[in-house]
């Protein structure tokens, strides 16, 4: 660069800096006055007794549904919008970022979500509903279950023996239950959905297999069950992965004559089964029955069934 051009650039930069300083100066004066601080009733330094922080639980429904927008265009409308979804909307902002309360509620929910993962399905519930338990080839507990989906897709040797001994072969509909990624989902929904399915099968005149429970279960285990019991339709009720602060969501994965080598393309799923915001378990049971009857009528499932309907 030539010398005088360099000079000109430097002068321009200096002018810009001076202008910026001139603008910045009054802003510094706008710091809160002592009176403003007093109005907020900040305790005087040293008066520890006056510092009282005693908070209400922010996770209660009333607190959760509070909007974070100070002056919405349509306050009533905003409430109505927030009521139609469990998603975190109407939360407002601090600059482009989250407001403090919303951020802390999110982090609190995240903290309890992790706890839900460690649980196992209550054996008493299984006994009550007449389900005998078997296992997949996962032997090293939850941690192994999480990182070895291949083992969670295969029944253990003992499971095969037990199932062969205790279950009737070739039913129209076989119902199985798996813990999947949420034991809680099974516990909260099973009492409601299982009787609907059983009663529905009886009414429809469908021959039902002997139901059982699979610990450390993945969806792919349906193939092993199909090979052992040869059901026409298999329904696997299984816990979905837990969401933020929620672990009640269950799915019903279904297949027509499942067998070794089948993939998800041969399966169907009804998901997000839970009370209060999801697909209600009673409705889901009825829906699953209709789907089972459709599979029986068309003698197929999954994408092929979809294409037949188109």
């Amino acid at each position: 660069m030539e010398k005088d051009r360099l000079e000109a650039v430097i002068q321009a930069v200096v002018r810009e800096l001076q202008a910026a300083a001139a603008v910045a100066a009054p802003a510094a004066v706008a710091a809160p006055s002592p009176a403003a601080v007093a109005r907020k009733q900040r305790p005087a330094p040293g008066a520890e007794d006056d510092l009282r922080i005693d908070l209400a639980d922010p996770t209660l429904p009333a607190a959760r549904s509070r909007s974070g927008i100070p002056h919405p265009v349509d306050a009533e409308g905003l409430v109505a919008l927030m009521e139609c979804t469990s998603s975190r909307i109407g939360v407002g902002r601090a600059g482009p970022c989250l407001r403090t309360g919303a951020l802390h509620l999110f982090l609190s929910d995240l903290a309890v979500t992790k706890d839900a993962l460690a649980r196992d399905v209550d054996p008493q519930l299984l006994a009550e509903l007449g389900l005998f338990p078997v296992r997949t080839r996962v032997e090293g507990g939850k941690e192994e279950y999480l990182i070895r989906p291949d083992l969670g897709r295969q029944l253990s040797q003992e499971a095969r023996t037990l199932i062969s001994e205790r279950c009737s072969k070739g039913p129209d509909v076989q119902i199985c239950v798996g813990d999947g990624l949420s034991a809680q989902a099974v516990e909260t929904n099973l009492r409601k959905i299982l009787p609907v399915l059983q009663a529905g099968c009886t009414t429809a005149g469908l021959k039902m297999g002997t139901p059982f429970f699979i610990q450390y279960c993945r969806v792919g285990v349906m193939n092993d069950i199909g090979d052992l019991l040869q059901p026409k339709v298999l329904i696997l009720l299984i816990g979905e992965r837990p969401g933020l602060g929620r672990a009640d969501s269950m799915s019903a994965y279904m297949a027509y004559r499942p067998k070794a080598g089948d993939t998800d393309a041969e399966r169907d799923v009804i998901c997000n089964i839970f009370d209060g915001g999801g697909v209600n378990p009673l409705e889901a049971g009825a829906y699953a029955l209709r789907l089972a009857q459709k599979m029986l009528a068309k003698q197929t499932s999954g994408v092929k069934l979809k294409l037949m309907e188109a």
Partner: protein
Amino acid sequence: MLLRTKLFGKTYDFPDLRVLMGKANGEKSGDRLAGLAADNAAERAAARLVLAEVPLWALRDNPAVPYEQDEVTRVIHDALNETVYAEIKAWTVSELREWLLDDRHDGSAIARCANGLTAEMIAAVTKIMSNMDLAYAASKIRVQRHSANTIGLDRRLSGRLQPNHPTDSPEGIRAEIYEGLAYGCGDAVIGINPSDDSYASVARLLDMSYGVVKTWEIPAQTCVLAHVTTQMRCLQSGSPVGLVFQSICGSQKGNDSFGISVGMLDEAYQLARKHCYPAGPHYMYFETGQGSALSANAHNGWDQLTLEARNYGLARRYSPFIVNTVVGFIGPEYLYDTEQIHRAGLEDHFMGKLTGISMGCDVCYTNHARTDQDSSENLAVILAAAGCNFFMGVPMADDSMLSYQSTSFHDIATLRHMLHLRPAPEFEVWLESLGLMRDGRLTDLAGDPSFFLSR
């Protein structure tokens, strides 16, 4: 084939490219699950030394699945530009890395070079790059596409508005769309994942979301991410579709397990061009993610990074408007913790850009992985600096239907403010006309979904 090196006096011998490619990968639980990971850090370092010296022709000659057996391989190999390939086939992987990073080679030079690269070459060079290399090289490449608006322009960052609902309630989803729009999100696509894949339910959501776009004259495209067969039925029945979506896999066997094939995608692409409502010419949307092929036992003994690169080669056939990796979506069996998710996010974004597709990233995690929201925010900043075309906007990052945490409307707005990035130009004009944005920043009116109740 001899693939050997000495390292600190010890000899490391790799029987073939398949094993070498696996062991050269950064640590991933999915490669360990497949029995392909390096035994220790020294073996990984040795594998990288050897891989760096492999000539590109050897990678073309050894695809992850043979040409005769696999239509994904055929799609990629048949599309290769032989003139470019002839110029570069003798380069080593190391030479390719340095060529890509060289300041004399800009985005358009790289785009030409990419016409001669197969997925295995792109995967190989990715394996020997550091995280910063991946971000920097990606930042040199811009891929622009047009549908109802333009994505991928320099200094722009778009957002996919993801307004999911556990029962697909149209009212609930509409409320979430309003929230997203109020934060300036939705320029990449307003894209709903359905909980119910039935034709009637998907058609209803297509109608509802298109209704919002019409009412507010939004220069954006809508999409319901159902199985492609459901969307094709909707297109044929006259539903308004902005983009046609499908999840894809890096091998024919993997795509079989998703219930799709190249023939089916070709058909969907034709239908999209015939019936989609935006100006185009780019109408497709794909999602990918490391681990999906292994999950279907369709990886043919190859590592998840290489299979992921093949996804992009397949996607390229359809000049998609957008593609994104859903980088932490499946869970810890494929990407165990923060480090692995970050590495995979940077790899995927770079590979997509190098392949020449309009690449975004769903920076996300499931609650059974060893990571958290702060980590997601970190990765989003790095990817935004690397020129990522778009991120997901989910209400406060919490998707209550898919049960995972992604990035939020706030995150996209914050990244734009912080890094001086703007929405797609047509979308920015629209936001300004409503008074929600000025000079690329949200105004006081923004962030209030009830704003959209007035029409």
